[in-house]
């Protein structure tokens, strides 16, 4: 029996679908541009007048219009949504908090890392080995995940995170350092 080998499939970089389904995704315009830039041959095959005429063959014109209208609406919606999300991403910030544990010992907690979209556990592990300390992932009061690193390494951590953000192209995200001193125990009644 002959062996069947895998077919090579091109996936759209923008919406991850096979290009012929781009028109049903939310980012049709950008997908089209991408395809034209990267796979001109395929682009011509899909978006030439011939192909468009063929695609509408078995449906009535009215129905076809209805579909394209709906799709347009959906696309606009999707675009607005992505814009909003991007804004939100850029507006958020990463907070590195230095918490005093006792006198000269500190832990730092890093929160707001969701924007990077990386595995928190792995990052905690890299921190642990980079700074040779303990690091763990915990949930804070708002049920968001944060990384706790033992030892006062906030400057180094800040540098590392800034580099990480640059790699991801999220330069706008601010990294903020806060000092959180432990409140002194209330003076007991005399």
């Amino acid at each position, binding site marked *: 029996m002959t062996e069947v080998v895998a*077919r090579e499939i091109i996936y759209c970089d923008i919406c991850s679908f*096979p290009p012929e*389904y781009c028109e*049903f995704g939310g980012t049709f315009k950008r997908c089209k541009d991408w395809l034209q830039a990267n796979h001109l041959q395929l682009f011509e095959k899909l978006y030439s007048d011939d192909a468009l005429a063929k695609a509408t063959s*078995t*449906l009535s014109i009215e129905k*076809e219009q209805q579909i394209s209208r709906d799709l347009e609406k959906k696309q606009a919606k999707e675009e607005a949504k992505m814009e909003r999300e991007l804004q939100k991403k850029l507006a958020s910030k990463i907070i590195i908090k230095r918490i005093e544990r006792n006198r000269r010992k500190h832990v730092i907690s890093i929160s707001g890392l969701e924007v990077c979209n990386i595995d928190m556990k792995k990052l905690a592990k890299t921190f642990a080995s980079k700074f040779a300390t303990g690091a763990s992932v915990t949930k804070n009061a708002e049920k968001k995940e944060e990384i706790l690193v033992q030892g006062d390494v906030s400057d180094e951590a800040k540098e590392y995170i800034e580099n990480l953000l640059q790699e991801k192209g999220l330069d706008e995200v601010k990294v903020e350092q806060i000092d959180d001193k432990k409140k002194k125990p209330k003076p007991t009644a005399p």
Partner: protein
Amino acid sequence: MFKKFTKEDIHSRSNIKSSVQRGLKSKFLEQFPKLEPAIDNVIPKKSQVILIKCEDKISLYYVENEVVLFQHFDDLVPSLRTVHKYPDCFPKVQVDRGAIKFVMSGANVMCPGLTSAGAKLPEESLPKDSVVTIYAEGKENALAIGKLTMSTDDIKSINKGIGIELLHYLGDGLWKLVE
């Protein structure tokens, strides 16, 4: 099934034993006999399969950085990326153009969408509960995978209601799950 599916639904991941892997392959072949010439490319003999257990008793099988198939109760279902690579190994049905939009937002496929002019059903009849790959009019790649809720003969004769229960489609949580 994967409409809302994120990394948080993953419970555990573990490597499976090679004997279990062999069993998995033979079971997968049993379900899709046409896959036989390709099975060693789908799951190479020397590869390590990773089992990812998820919410709702779904388990994913992960080979070489890709989810190749998933299991829901007793059904083994190939992932869409696998179907795209080996399109001829799985039973195919085709829906008309009007249905694409709904299928790609996760709707079950209704019978009229399978019997109208732009749609195609396989010539041989498929029994109820078999897993089929769903194609679309004018497109060459599959857009979804589903399970028949009635046999293809019934679909043709009754022509009403849900014909295919959708399992996995382009753009759902599993499709977007890249690690």
